[in-house]
């Protein structure tokens, strides 16, 4: 038998199906639809113990929308299962991110050298010698991937490469990447702040990241960094091309 039990709500009582149903059922189509979404998300993520929390997050995100937008979503996805299928994955990523932040583990994930994915960031801290001799603190605690000297050299190289790669970005692009990748700001929040569509900003972030990758490869291969073409420069280039075509 159970040795102890604790209930956070009222004590147990016999409740018939009629009472249960009468209390939980709502006439509101929105309530019925959102309950359907919650169940569908919970069904989809049922292998996770916190599936119902993710489902709640999805529903609250929908209900935070203005009424017109909410009705638009309900009209577009009359089937809650279809809607849940569309949003569950992103809701799960958001949920995990929030959980990691709440646990002070860092919102984003990084890939370790052995291929495993872990929350947090790749930091290399300064070294400190052990007074009694022997290995340094860095070797003892942090340098499990390579010798300290190699890590320091790699780090300096990486800083040099990064500096050159960043030269290819304009100030706004650098700020954008810093906010998203450095400060964990969300693209949707920055887009709202700037008064642009999330998709527009997302495209800009993607193209900037792509240029960073291209430039990194170029720098590593000893090539030149592609600079951001400003609007006047683009117009001048287009004009020159036009004149050349006419000739």
């Amino acid at each position, binding site marked *: *038998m*159970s*040795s*102890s*039990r*604790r*209930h*956070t*709500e*009222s*004590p*147990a*009582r*016999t*409740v*018939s*199906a*009629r*009472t*249960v*149903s009468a*209390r*939980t*059922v*709502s*006439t*509101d*189509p*929105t*309530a*019925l*639809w*959102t*309950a*359907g979404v*919650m*169940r*569908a998300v*919970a*069904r989809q993520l*049922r*292998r996770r*113990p916190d*599936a*119902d929390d993710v*489902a*709640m997050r999805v*529903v*609250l995100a929908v*209900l935070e929308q203005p009424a017109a937008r909410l009705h638009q979503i309900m009209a577009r996805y009359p*089937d*809650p*299962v*279809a809607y849940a*299928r569309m949003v569950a994955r992103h809701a799960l990523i958001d949920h995990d991110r929030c959980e990691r932040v709440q646990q002070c583990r860092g919102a984003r994930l990084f890939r370790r050298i052995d291929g495993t994915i872990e929350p947090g960031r790749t930091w290399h801290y300064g070294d400190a010698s052990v007074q009694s001799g022997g290995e340094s603190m860095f070797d003892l605690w942090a340098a499990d991937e390579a010798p300290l000297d190699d890590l320091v050299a790699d780090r300096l190289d990486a800083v040099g490469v990064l500096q050159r790669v960043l030269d290819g970005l304009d100030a706004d692009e650098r700020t954008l990447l810093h906010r998203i990748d450095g400060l964990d700001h969300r693209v949707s929040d920055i887009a709202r702040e700037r008064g642009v569509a999330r998709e527009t900003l997302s495209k800009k972030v993607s193209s900037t990241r792509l240029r960073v990758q291209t430039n990194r490869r170029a720098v590593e291969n000893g090539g030149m960094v592609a600079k951001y073409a400003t609007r006047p420069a683009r117009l001048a280039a287009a004009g020159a091309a036009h004149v050349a075509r006419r000739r």
Partner: protein
Amino acid sequence: MSPRLAQVHLRYRPASDVLSGDVELGTLAADQSVTDTLDADTYFEWRHSTVADGLVLSSFQILHAAARLDGPPLSMLPAEVLVLARQVIASGTAALRPEATMIERLKAKADTTALLTVDQLLQSSAGAVATAPLPPTPAEQSQAGALAAAIDQVASVIARLPEPVEATRTNELVHLAHELAAVLRETPGTTSPGTSAAARRAARYALPLDTSSRSMLWRALTEVDDRRHWQSALVRFNSLAADLDRQRVDTLRARVRGTKSPLDDCPSADQHTDDDSDD
């Protein structure tokens, strides 16, 4: 001898009728888990006990829990956990205030924590027998699509029926029927006994259905829980859709003429109370 206790947490959300639970087993069980997904509405995870012989419950989720546990008990769920589950469902439902806003209702949650012995969490012999169903045959998969379409059709016809009483239950039934159809369509060959139990419960109350239609709907919703009876359920749903559509047209015509219609003879909410058993 130590009592070998494990802490069991149960969580119930009344708005969506989802019950989930997890057990802190620690060293009482091995890390390797065995999962049971008998249908689309239940999920059980078990671990091999290190202190007893057999599988011990690690976590579970039941959709449409109130409707599901109102009927015959789930054979997979250990008896002590079933008692706790019924208690947490009751307390979660009782805590809902009728004047609560929609967001408050959606956020409502009841929790229970209890200490149970490992023996009380062991998989029962009945649960062990209820192994995962065989994978669906291609015929069953195509039948699932036809069945889903038929259920959708019945739901659409019920939604269009002239409503003599109040629309609450009809709305609920229509939503649940669409949900059942969506689950059958999304996961062909998988049954959804929780959704069908909830639909049966909604159909028990006042609806613009006469006794024979209600009884046919009841039987079809019961048959849909067993893949072997899907053909019969399909026939019933198709027949029901045709009957209800005819009744709807007759009722509308009768109302225009000012005479009594078939659906006007439907029993009211008060007449359909406890005499409709769960079969």
